[in-house]
């Protein structure tokens, strides 16, 4: 017997069954969890010595061995908030941070970014909404680019990436660029998509929405969109004492280095 049947007699009154609004209850709980994370971990943290990882694995010999291995190649790390956007935020941050010291390359990247909006609109993205993210994205790049010294550029970068409004817009725009790249090279990427989904569906469900975690395919497309290579260093419970490195796209000379631990990305510094 369904709940609704009991109310049959109430026809004509405007009382439908007092069904709980479950969607909102689930959303409320989700928001509570998110709030706990956001209260305790900054969007992008300060530079920390790599050894700070040891604190997380005091009794875990597998991981401690791997941190030791990692420390041979990397001196510092920067943590990002684990909110599902960590790859996009880390990648975007690290990429711009490297550019702060390189005037010509920054100019080149700025030009690439300037032309990206029209490319998205041509692919069918709605001009009105894309423009909103694009404007903020360019504003952030400009503020970092025009700061008088490299140090001030870096400070500006760090400040803006820790302001939710700006930081999230940087993430959204990179998500849109990634989605654009996937759709532009649809024939190639469609082979890597699981289930019976089109590339466009995949982008709407897994790439464009905030807080959706990134896979290999997101990373490859994001690299192509920004014309940058990334080295992802995998650290997990697998056998062996060293971490596995993957350069994406394969064979590139990576500029950005990211540490991947199951479900999360942080930035690494040689």
């Amino acid at each position, binding site marked *: 017997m369904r709940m*609704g049947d009991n109310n049959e007699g109430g026809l*004509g009154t405007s009382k*439908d069954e*007092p069904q709980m609004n479950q969607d909102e209850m689930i959303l409320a709980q989700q928001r509570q969890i998110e709030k706990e994370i956001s209260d305790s971990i900054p969007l992008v943290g300060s530079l920390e010595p790599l050894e700070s990882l040891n604190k997380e694995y005091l009794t875990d010999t597998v991981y401690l061995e791997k941190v030791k291995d990692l420390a041979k190649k990397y001196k510092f790390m920067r943590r990002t908030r684990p909110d599902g956007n960590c790859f996009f935020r880390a990648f975007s941050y690290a990429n711009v941070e490297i550019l702060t010291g390189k005037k010509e390359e920054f100019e080149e990247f700025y030009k690439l970014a300037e032309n990206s909006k029209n490319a998205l609109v041509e692919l069918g993205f709605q001009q009105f909404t894309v423009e909103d993210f694009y404007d903020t994205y360019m504003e952030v790049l400009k503020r970092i680019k025009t700061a008088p010294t490299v140090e001030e550029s870096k400070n500006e970068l760090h400040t803006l990436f820790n302001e939710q409004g700006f930081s999230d817009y940087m993430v959204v725009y990179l998500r*849109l660029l990634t989605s654009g790249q996937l759709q532009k090279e649809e024939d190639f990427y469609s082979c890597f998509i699981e289930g019976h989904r089109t590339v466009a569906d995949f982008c709407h469900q897994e790439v464009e929405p905030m807080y959706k975690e990134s896979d290999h395919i997101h990373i490859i497309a994001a690299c192509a969109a920004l014309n940058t290579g990334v080295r992802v260093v995998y650290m997990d419970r697998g056998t062996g004492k060293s971490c596995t490195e993957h350069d994406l796209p394969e064979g590139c000379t990576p500029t950005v280095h990211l540490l991947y631990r199951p479900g999360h990305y942080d930035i690494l510094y040689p």
Partner: protein
Amino acid sequence: MSTPARRRLMRDFKRLQEDPPTGVSGAPTDNNIMIWNAVIFGPHDTPFEDGTFKLTIEFTEEYPNKPPTVRFVSHMFHPNVYADGGICLDILQNRWSPTYDVSAILTSIQSLLSDPNPNSPANSMAAQLYKENRREYEKRVKACVEQSFID
């Protein structure tokens, strides 16, 4: 104070005025851009035809990265609308994309009126009648339509 959310809402409002989709309208409340009132006119050739259904849309500073909370103020009888006016619609929950704007939200709700999804019911009585007793369903909907004139 201008925040990305507020700036974006001004844009949404401007676009809604310059390029209004048929059958929907919306505007911020007088003193708060984060709370909007909206109206959806019942789509033609559906039992909702001629109804003028009022809604409120509440945004947070996280908009457009998170969806707003949208609620019918007018009494609704619809498989995907809760008794409190809350709406069960994927794009307002797990399928939200920051590329959606107020215009897209309102037109999506408008098409939900034409095409209910009885398999994911927020009002099980409405869902059941929609599937098994369409005449009674339409009668209940029409009562809402008439009530919407008075509200």
